[in-house]
Every structure is written in structure tokens, then in C-alpha cells.
């Protein structure tokens, strides 16, 4: 409850952005989020448990995500697993961030920066 304000209007951190992106498609538990972020970022956003659960704590406090009611069949997996779901505020924050990215890409396109390739790209 204490840090609702700072998370939303500012640009999202890469960890928060990727967690929201992962949860925008499905309800996932911690390890599932980690794997989805790994795939989405092509391993460019390294996320260990310290970063993941610290981000989840802040996002829960800010109302961007919530704990889901979803539980798995104990025969398949540990039934104590907690799944997380994106909230309406989370979807809104993700949309705002994506719009910001879109604006930046548009700006880069206008300035013909997209054709430029980073020096290390070969």
C-alpha cells in the first residue's frame, strides 16, 4: 500500500515490465514467470529469485498483480504453488509502457535511427 504511487507513473523497470508482459497472457507461478521472461527477453533480462520475488512484492503492494485462485492438481504438481494474475491496473500500466515504447520507436523511425545497427552487431 505504501508504494502505489511511485510504480505506475514512472517508466517500469525491465523486471516489472517483463513480469507484466508474461502475466498478460496467462496466470503463472514464480518459476513459470521466470521461464516466460527468459523466453520473451531471449535471456537478456536475467531474473533470479531475489529480483523476481522482490518485484512481485512491490507489484502486489502497488495493485499491479494479484494472487490467483488457480491451484494445480496435486497429482501433477505441488498444490501449494501460488499463481499470480495481472490486474486491471497492471494491464493499464503495461499499455502505458508499450505506448511509450511505441512513441520512442516512432521517434527513432522519424530520425532514421532504426536503420542504424549497433557496432557489435557485425
Amino acid at each position, binding site marked *: 500500500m*505504501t508504494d502505489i504511487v511511485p510504480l505506475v507513473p514512472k517508466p517500469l523497470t525491465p523486471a516489472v515490465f517483463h513480469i507484466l508482459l508474461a502475466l498478460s497472457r496467462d496466470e503463472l*507461478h*514464480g*518459476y513459470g514467470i*521466470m521461464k516466460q521472461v527468459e523466453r520473451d527477453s531471449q535471456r537478456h533480462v536475467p531474473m*533470479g*529469485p*531475489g*529480483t*523476481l*520475488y*522482490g518485484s*512481485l*512484492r512491490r507489484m502486489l503492494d502497488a495493485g499491479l498483480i494479484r494472487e490467483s485462485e488457480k491451484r494445480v492438481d496435486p497429482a501433477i504438481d*505441488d498444490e*501449494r*504453488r*501460488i499463481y499470480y494474475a495481472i490486474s486491471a491496473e497492471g494491464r493499464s500500466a503495461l499499455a502505458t509502457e508499450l505506448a511509450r515504447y511505441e512513441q520512442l520507436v516512432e521517434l527513432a523511425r522519424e530520425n532514421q535511427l532504426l536503420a542504424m545497427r549497433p557496432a557489435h552487431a557485425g
Partner: protein
Amino acid sequence: MPADRARAAYRRLLGLYPRSFRERFADSMEQTFDDLRRERSARGSGMLRLVVWMFAETSLGVARENLAALSRARPAHHHRYALIGLLLFLPIAILVPAIWLDLAVVRDLLTHEGDRPNLLGWTVIVGGLLLLPLAFVLALLPMLRRGPNRRRRLYALNLLVCVVIAIPIGTALYGIGEEIYRCEVRGLPNCD
């Protein structure tokens, strides 16, 4: 490190998180630890690198969450900060008068036959001096934090502890500065 010992050590590390965080996430973090180990094991990859990375990454998380918990603590806890500051100040608070009064028990314990400090002596002196700024900041912190009405408050106990700790800090800085001035600036021979 065998798997069970790594897991037990990881559980102990999770114990360093603030209680509210631990109660909420420690079980899930342990599950994630097991998931990553299983994944690595299924791939036939080495476990040591994963374990070292997990411990390092989680240690950073522990530090971050404890700092966050500290900054969220209510001003009503200001006396705790003053008390912790006072406890951290204790080694120097005991050492200085003991040296001044030349207490035999302290001299025997912390020096080589009353001459130069021994290992324990150096540990107490250096450790005690390093703890002083931390003690000062901890006692000061509640007075820097803004309350719900966006205003800062002055707490008599915290102020008193800050002043008491500022005396040895000021004395130590004055001593160092004075020696630098005599030896380095004025270049006096045999000044130290």
C-alpha cells in the same frame, strides 16, 4: 555441495529476509530453488554455478528488502533506531574510557603485553570506529523521514544519541585532520 545441504543453506539465507516478506514468499522461493535445480539436473549441467548465482542474487534481494523494510518502518519505531545506534556505539563507548583509565583487564585483553594492540584489539578499534557512522545514521534516520503529513519530526532520544555519537566521530576526524595538517601540510619532522 550436496543438494540437501545447498537447500538447507538456501533456507537459512531466506531466513534473513524481513519477517513479512519471508512469511509471504519464502516457501515459493524454496520451490523455485528446487525447480531450477531440477531443470539443471535434467539438462545434465553442473550445479555449482547455479547454486553460487542463486545465493549471490538472493543475497542482493535480502539486502534490498531489508533496506526497503527499514525505510517503510513507522516513525513510532524511532526509539528502536536510537537503541540500535546506541548498541553499535557501545564498543567505542567502553573502549575509550577503559584506555583513558588504563584498566588492566582491557590492556591485557586487547594488547601485546600492554604495548601495541593485538588482533582482538585492532578488531575492536577498527570495527568500533567503522560502526560509528552507521550508528549515527541509524539514530538520525527517523528524523529525516517525512510523516503522513509530509513533515519531519524531532525526537529527543534520537537527537541525544546522535549528539553523543557525533562527539567521538568529531574527535577522530579532528585527530586525523590535525595529523595530516602537521605532517603533510606543514611537513614537521617526527610529527606522528
